[in-house]
């Protein structure tokens, strides 16, 4: 482990910035731990993909952005939403399928949108959102706006045609998009070595002459450092980059999937948990005298309180009204529907 480099990343950030990152990672962790419990209690339905273990990628990357920059995410995006600025209670209410949810209860865990905060959606077709992020990059260049776009996806998405089509266009047209591969080693239950001819995701950028970097995705400051460089390239020269953040999810692919089993061993998961990104940052910060155990526990208490408030808010919110069923399909809610369709409500 190149400790000197880690310290260098650490010292490049202020104590407040680091405390903010620790706080965000902890919020994400506690939020999702409780979301898992709410799922078990059937307060949350459908598919629910947890980011536990991978929080450093979302937190480090989004910390490199300005508030009005855009992000696109896959369906594992609760933490990304929280970090981009969405209120925890609006996220929890969405998971609960309530009208107060950030997508009015119509999106669910996989489709969190908060346009006011630049969260342009969680998207649930693997790799399908990569062209959309490229399109926002196109729009920024078209209108000469200064914002950049971060596009998060897993390592399994880089075998999708849309990834390659997007990188080609982004390089050809010089678009300000940072493509961030959250390489957690498994596309559901298939290890990267069993799905990709090339394991080194960052190498894929060569095909399109796109700048690339591989970073330890369990180290939030290293992620922040690498993504900051890519964001600067996008902002100053409107050029795309590919960042491969090597991380690990401590939970199953989704809530219906075991933590370990046919595709990975318990021992492997336990070993990876030694790289816990929250503990890693805490230890580095405490070695620099920036926080102590007591301070960490106080932070943890605050975060847990926020999560409990989010749950209470979600639980106390109403489900969407039946009239909401046909709203938001078209600009004019009833325009395109025939009389019979309407009467079937």
């Amino acid at each position, binding site marked *: 482990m190149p400790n000197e480099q880690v310290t260098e990343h650490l010292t490049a950030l202020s104590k407040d910035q680091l405390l903010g990152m620790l706080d965000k990672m902890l919020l994400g962790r506690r939020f999702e731990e409780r979301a898992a419990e709410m799922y078990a209690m059937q307060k949350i339905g459908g598919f629910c993909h947890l980011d536990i273990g991978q929080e450093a990628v979302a937190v480090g990357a989004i910390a490199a952005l300005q508030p009005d920059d855009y992000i696109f995410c896959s369906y594992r995006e609760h933490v990304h939403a929280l970090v981009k600025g969405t209120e925890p209670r609006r996220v929890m209410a969405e998971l609960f399928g309530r009208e107060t949810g950030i*997508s009015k209860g119509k999106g669910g865990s996989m489709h969190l949108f908060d346009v006011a905060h630049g969260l342009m959606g969680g998207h649930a077709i693997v790799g399908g959102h990569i*062209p*959309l992020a490229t*399109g*926002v990059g196109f729009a920024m260049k078209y209108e000469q706006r200064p914002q950049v776009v971060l596009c998060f996806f897993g390592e399994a998405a880089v075998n999708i045609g849309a990834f390659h089509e*997007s990188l080609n*266009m982004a390089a050809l047209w010089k678009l300000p998009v940072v493509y961030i591969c959250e390489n957690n080693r498994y596309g559901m239950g298939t290890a990267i070595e069993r799905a990709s001819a090339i394991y080194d995701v960052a190498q894929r950028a060569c095909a399109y002459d796109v700048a690339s970097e591989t970073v330890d995705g369990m180290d939030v400051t290293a992620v922040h450092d690498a993504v900051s460089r890519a964001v600067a390239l996008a902002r100053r020269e409107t050029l795309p980059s590919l960042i491969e953040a090597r991380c690990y999810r401590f939970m199953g692919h989704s809530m219906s999937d075991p933590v370990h089993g046919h595709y990975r061993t318990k021992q492997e998961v336990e070993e990876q948990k030694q790289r816990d990104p929250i503990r890693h940052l805490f230890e580095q910060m405490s070695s620099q005298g920036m926080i102590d155990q007591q301070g960490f526990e106080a932070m943890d208490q605050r975060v847990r309180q926020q999560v409990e408030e989010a749950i209470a808010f979600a639980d106390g919110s109403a489900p969407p009204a039946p009239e909401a069923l046909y709203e938001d399909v078209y600009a004019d809610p009833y325009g395109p529907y*025939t009389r019979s369709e309407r009467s079937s409500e």
Partner: protein
Amino acid sequence: MALITYRDALNQALREEMRRDPRVFLMGEEVGVYQGAYKVSRGLMQEFGERRVIDTPITEEGFTGVGVGAAMVGLRPIIEIMTWNFSMEAIDQIVSGAAKMRYMSGGQVKIPMVIRGPGGAAHQLGAQHSQALESWYAHVPGLKVAAASTPYDAKGLLKSAIRDDDPVIFIEGETLYGSKGEVPEEEYLIPLGVADVKRQGKDATVLAWSKMVGVALKAAETLAGDNVSCDVIDLRTLRPLDADAIISSVRRTNRCVVVEEGWPYSGIGAELADLIQREAFDDLDAPVERVTGADVPMPYAKNLEHLAMPSPDRVVEAVRRVMYLD
């Protein structure tokens, strides 16, 4: 009024809307330097430059998704698909993307986007280049589907589609590009969702759109010689559908024939037959007849291709059947 081609009417619509709104841009394969595979975009790159008329790589999924993304942040893309046959490459971006963004986001984003290009069979292009796919797209909530039959409609509908705040699938007739019709000098719009009565009659209603309107009108002309008069209704948009125009006509004629270039199974004609039986059951004097493309991949051989396409003769036969004349 000027007599211009369907192709030039579309070109005028694109040009006028691009002049009107700087957020409108045209993107697709060969739309710029080459002036359009079917010359619909002729001269646009010269007028609007490479910033607003964008040639793409052959990458339908990619550039259609770029259009959806650009629309999410306020631009108004026109994405040209060289022919709708290639739209299957882009269908995830259209169906999972364009059609669903408004809903999944609880109304936070809109997709003011037109995806346009020619559809249907031309002449001996074989199975992969001869498909009428409007029923696929009309099936999807969140999309609108338009298919103009004349230069006048092509221009007015495309202008409305470009100004619409929902994604519009705009299917042009590949064999209609050279057809001519009168188009006024002054600006006009045709709203999406309003059918056009092309010919009035009392004995049967014939429903058609795009290229099939011509087939239906030829059949109506032949039938007129036998003292059978038909209402010929051009639906113009398949979603939204002008149910009022359809039902009020069928209530008068008590008989209906649907002419559709696409395949019969789960086709638009099936939807129309359902609408009519639900809303005008007591007015019907015969089951709704459907004249469709043959339920086969399009053959290459000229004689087989002809057999696979709806023809005026087949429409005449269908009208005579619903009138119990034979």
